[in-house]
């Protein structure tokens, strides 16, 4: 099993910035990759691609629905478009277009949302995407990914260009600790077990993966052996990894920076409900919108910290037969 010292969690890039770098690198090797943005390219980091490949970069202005439609048109004749905006605008303003012009005809459109979750901080709830995973997962045929660090983001963006089909990749504004070695392999739909454990499994995605690693360390100090799984792909879910964790550890905690309605937690519950009913606890945003504050203050207030995961793990263990 990987030694826990592997997780020094050194400071790294925001996943949005890693996305921008991955995109610019893709532009060099794949002439079919085109990029669309809706007046946020400095924030989504698509500007780097735009600067390097101006002919293949389309500034759509503040009009996300049209951007998604144009992206779908480009995809339907063989381009590999990446359309980017804040997750909240991409999924909410573009949803009907994603449904009818991307999901229904199953075109090769990639959408990448930045500024996901509440960790954007001061801009407040109108800019915070807390339902994007739920919305994206409700699109038949969509692949939905939520990388935890820069290494995962760069690898999954690259994979997205290689694999046909509509996809959503969720990235964030905050700088994230580096979890993975640069040569870590990623496969869409295949979860990564970061720490093995026997008593409880912590299943996390995005920003909550690092929190779960910290939580596992705290639990270990209490004599509790926690498995940690990075569920970087929300759809299709790695049912085998979930079922194995349910059978082998008998208790699951699912942690996500997302509403508890319709996100990773309920999807994991659906799997174990079918394969191996198991005690579960959930860490997420509970039926509310957040507010303006610093990211740290918000993650504390809305319960998205290692300490919340630890508490959930204890609850799960107390209910475990």
């Amino acid at each position, binding site marked *: 099993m990987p030694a826990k010292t592997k997780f020094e969690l050194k400071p790294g890039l925001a996943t949005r910035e890693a996305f921008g770098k991955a995109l610019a690198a893709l532009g060099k090797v794949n002439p079919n990759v*085109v990029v669309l943005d809706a007046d946020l390219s400095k924030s989504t980091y698509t500007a780097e691609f735009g600067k390097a490949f101006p002919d293949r970069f389309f500034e759509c202005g503040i*009009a996300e629905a049209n951007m998604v*439609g*144009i*992206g779908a*048109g480009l995809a339907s004749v*063989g381009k590999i478009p990446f359309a980017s905006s804040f997750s909240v605008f991409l999924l909410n303003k573009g949803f009907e*277009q994603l449904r009818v*012009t991307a999901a229904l*005809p199953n075109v090769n459109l990639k959408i990448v949302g930045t500024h996901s979750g509440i960790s954007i901080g001061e801009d407040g709830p109108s800019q915070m995407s807390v339902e994007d995973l739920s919305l994206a997962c409700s699109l038949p045929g969509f692949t939905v990914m939520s990388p935890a660090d820069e290494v995962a983001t760069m690898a999954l963006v690259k994979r997205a260009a290689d694999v046909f089909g509509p996809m959503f990749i969720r990235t964030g504004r905050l700088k994230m600790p580096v979890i993975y070695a640069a040569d870590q392999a990623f496969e869409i739909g295949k979860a990564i077990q970061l720490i093995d454990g026997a008593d409880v499994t912590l299943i996390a995605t995005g920003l909550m993966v690092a929190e779960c690693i910290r939580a596992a360390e705290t639990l270990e100090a209490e004599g509790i052996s926690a498995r940690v799984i990075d569920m970087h792909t929300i759809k299709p879910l790695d049912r085998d990894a979930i079922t194995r964790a349910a059978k082998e550890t008998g208790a699951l905690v699912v942690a996500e920076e997302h509403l508890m309605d319709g996100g990773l937690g309920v999807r994991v519950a659906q799997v174990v409900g079918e394969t191996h009913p198991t005690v579960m606890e959930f860490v997420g945003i509970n039926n509310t919108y957040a507010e303006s504050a610093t990211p740290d203050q918000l993650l504390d207030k809305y319960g998205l910290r290692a300490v919340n995961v630890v508490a959930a793990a204890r609850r799960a263990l107390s209910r475990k037969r």
Partner: protein
Amino acid sequence: MQTTSNVAELAALCKSMRREVIEMITDAKSGHPGGSLSAVEIVVTLFMDVMRHDPANPKWKDRDHFILSKGHCCPILYAVMAECGYCPKDQLNTLRKLGSIYQGHPDVRFLPALEATTGSLGQGLSLAIGMGLAARLDKSPSRTFVVLGDGEIQEGQIWEAAMFGGFHKVDNVVAIVDSNRIQLDGFVKDIMDESPLAEKWSSFNWHVIELDGHDIGALQKAFAEAAAMKGQPTVIIAHTVKGKGVSFMENNPKYHGTAPTVEEEARALAELA
């Protein structure tokens, strides 16, 4: 596929396509005859004369594209595509029935020769512009034609796309507004008046042509003018008659979305004989 630029031949084909539309929708017992009949000359002129396409090679890279953004009027598209040889004529009467390739609104999953899945109004112009941008990048002669309803253009996305198309000079896209003046709830002028329509498109930097949408010669001339237009996309505002060709359907909002009865079918076919 037998193409022709002969106006009399195209007009004869239009009449036969109108018969197909009436028969399909009557068999289906539901559908949208009015807007299918208003668009007949537009669709026939494009597929039979203007567009560069090949039913034997439907995904030919440099083909022209056609998008029926007002997807509810798909009976006319299906009839013309079947006439071209893209799909079987003898299945047109399966429209809207379980397992049919002729879905109630165009769906590429069932009929891959379609260029787009449509039906939720307001989305086809964005798709057309995406296809136009791809052709420009590839230095392809491919052009994209998209038919919009005059009711449909009340959707905001149309004007997002119009702004983009004009600003980015997507001159390989031609939009045709089938201006039949009627939408589901009544006359467009009473539901949400769009006048002055030509000025609206013109102010979004589109080249505007207005014509009688049942005048095949005028349509041919307009499509040639659009092809020569550089630096601006073209919109053709085609003034049409909803239900054109069937006296009791013409200008009657009832036939936006009501199928003819078998008795009405007989009267309609007699008029289209």
